[in-house]
C-alpha cells in the first residue's frame, strides 16, 4: 500500500465544501492542503444516509399500518432515537416511548402535542397525519 493512501482530492465531484486537510509524507514533513475529502468519506456518509432513509421508510410503513404513532415517523425523520427525543421535548424516556403507541397518541392533549410539534418544527395538524 502506498504511503499516502488518502490523498487530497481537488475535484469538485468529491464533496461540496473544501476543508483543510493535514497529510504526512515520506520525508517527514507535515503538509496542509485545502481540498475535498476522499472516496472513503463519501462511501461512509452514503452508508449512513441510506441507513437513515431505510429507517424513515420503515417507520412510515408502520405508521400507515397502524402499528406506531406518527411521532415515530417524525422522530426518525429528525434522525433521533427515543432517548434523544426525550431530551429534546423535555419528557422522561418512558413517557416518550409510551407516546409511540397509536392508541395512546390519539388520547394526547393539545399541550403535549404542541411540545412535539415544536421540536419537529411542524404544525399540530401535520403531526396528526403522515403522508
Amino acid at each position, binding site marked *: 500500500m502506498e504511503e499516502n493512501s488518502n490523498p487530497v482530492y481537488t475535484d469538485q465531484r468529491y464533496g461540496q465544501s473544501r476543508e483543510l486537510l*493535514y497529510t*504526512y509524507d515520506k520525508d517527514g514533513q507535515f503538509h496542509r492542503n485545502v481540498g475535498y475529502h476522499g472516496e472513503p468519506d463519501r462511501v*461512509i456518509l452514503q452508508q449512513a444516509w441510506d441507513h437513515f432513509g431505510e429507517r424513515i421508510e420503515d417507520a412510515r410503513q408502520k405508521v400507515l399500518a397502524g402499528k406506531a404513532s406518527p411521532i415515530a415517523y417524525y422522530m426518525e425523520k429528525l434522525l433521533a432515537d427515543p432517548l434523544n427525543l426525550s431530551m429534546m421535548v423535555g419528557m422522561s424516556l418512558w413517557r416518550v416511548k409510551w407516546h409511540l403507541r397509536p392508541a395512546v397518541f390519539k388520547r394526547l392533549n393539545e399541550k403535549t402535542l404542541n411540545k412535539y410539534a415544536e421540536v419537529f418544527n411542524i404544525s399540530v395538524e401535520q403531526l396528526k397525519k403522515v403522508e
Partner: protein
Amino acid sequence: METKTMIDYTHRQAGHCESGATSNLLRFYNQEISEPMAFGIGNGLYFSYIPFLKVQFAPMISFRNLPNTVFHRSMKYLGIDATVIKKFKDPKEAMLALDRNLEKGIPTGMQVGVFNLTFFPPEYRMHYNMHNMVCFGKEGNLYHISDTVMETAHVLTYEDLLRVRYAKGVFAPEGKMYWINSVNKELDIRTAVSMGIKKTVYEMIKVPFPLIGVKGLRWMGRDLKKWPKKHGPEKASFYLGQVLRMAEDFGTGGAGFRFIYGDFLKETGEMFNHSELLETSRMMGKTANRWREFTYIGARNCKNRSKPEEDYSMLGDMMIEIAGMEEQVYKKLDKIKL
C-alpha cells in the same frame, strides 16, 4: 433599527473547529499561536469508546475531549485571562450577552449543534453538538460567523443562530460562550507545552479506566472482531461505518487529529531544538498514516460486503496494532523533560 458592528477579525481555515477558533481568537490579540499548537496545548487528542451508550444508532466513539476543553485548557496553561459562560437559562439573555460582547469589540466563541446549521453541507448535518464557531459581527438581524471548518466566513440570522445555540440532545450547548479578556505580552509557551503534553499522556495511557485512551482503542479493536457474529453483517457494517465517520468527518476527525498532533510535536521540537520531540513527531506521523490506511480499508469493506468475518478480524488486528504504535509514542513523550 439598523445596527452594524463589525470587528476586524481574520478568518483562517483550520482542521479542528475548536483549536482553530482558539488560534484565531489569540491571533486577534496579536499572539501568533498556530492551530496545531493550540490543539496540542489544549489536549485535543483523546479517545473514548462507550459501547453501551448509543449515539445515532451505533456505539458512542469520541475522538475529542468534552466540549470546550481545548479552549479552556490552553487558556489555563498559557496563563491567559479568559471567560467561559457554561450556560444561559434564557435563550434571549444568551443572545443579548453576545450582542453586548460584540458592541465592546470582543469576538466571541460559541458551542453549537450542527443539525440546524444552515451553511453546513447537508450530508454532514447530523446530531452533533460539539461544534465551535466564532461570532465577530452583527448587521441588523444577521450575525457574521467564522466557522473554521469552512473556507470563508458566513452569516446566520438571529433565529438560526438561536436554534443552533440551543440544540438539544447529548452534550447540549445551552448557549455556552467563551472569549478572551486580555493577553499578556510574553507567553510562557515552554511551560504550557510541557503541561499540555503531560495531560495528554495521562489521558491516553494512564487513566485507570479501560475504555479511555489506548486501552479504549484496544477494547474497540477486540469488539470490532466480534461485531459480525454478534450483530450480523448489516449492523456490523453500520457500526464500522460509525467508527470511520468519527475518524474521518466532523472536522477532520480522529485520524486527522493524529496529523495535527504530529505537527504540534514537530513545531515544538523545532522551537526548543529538541531531537526527541522531533522523533516522536515522526512516529506520530507514521501512526497517522496507518490510521488513514485503516479508514481506507474499512470504507472499502463497508462498500462491498463480501466475506465480512475475514475482513473484520483483520481490521480489529490493525486497530490493536495502531493502539500499540500510539502507546509507544506516549511512553516516549512521558520520559521527555522540557
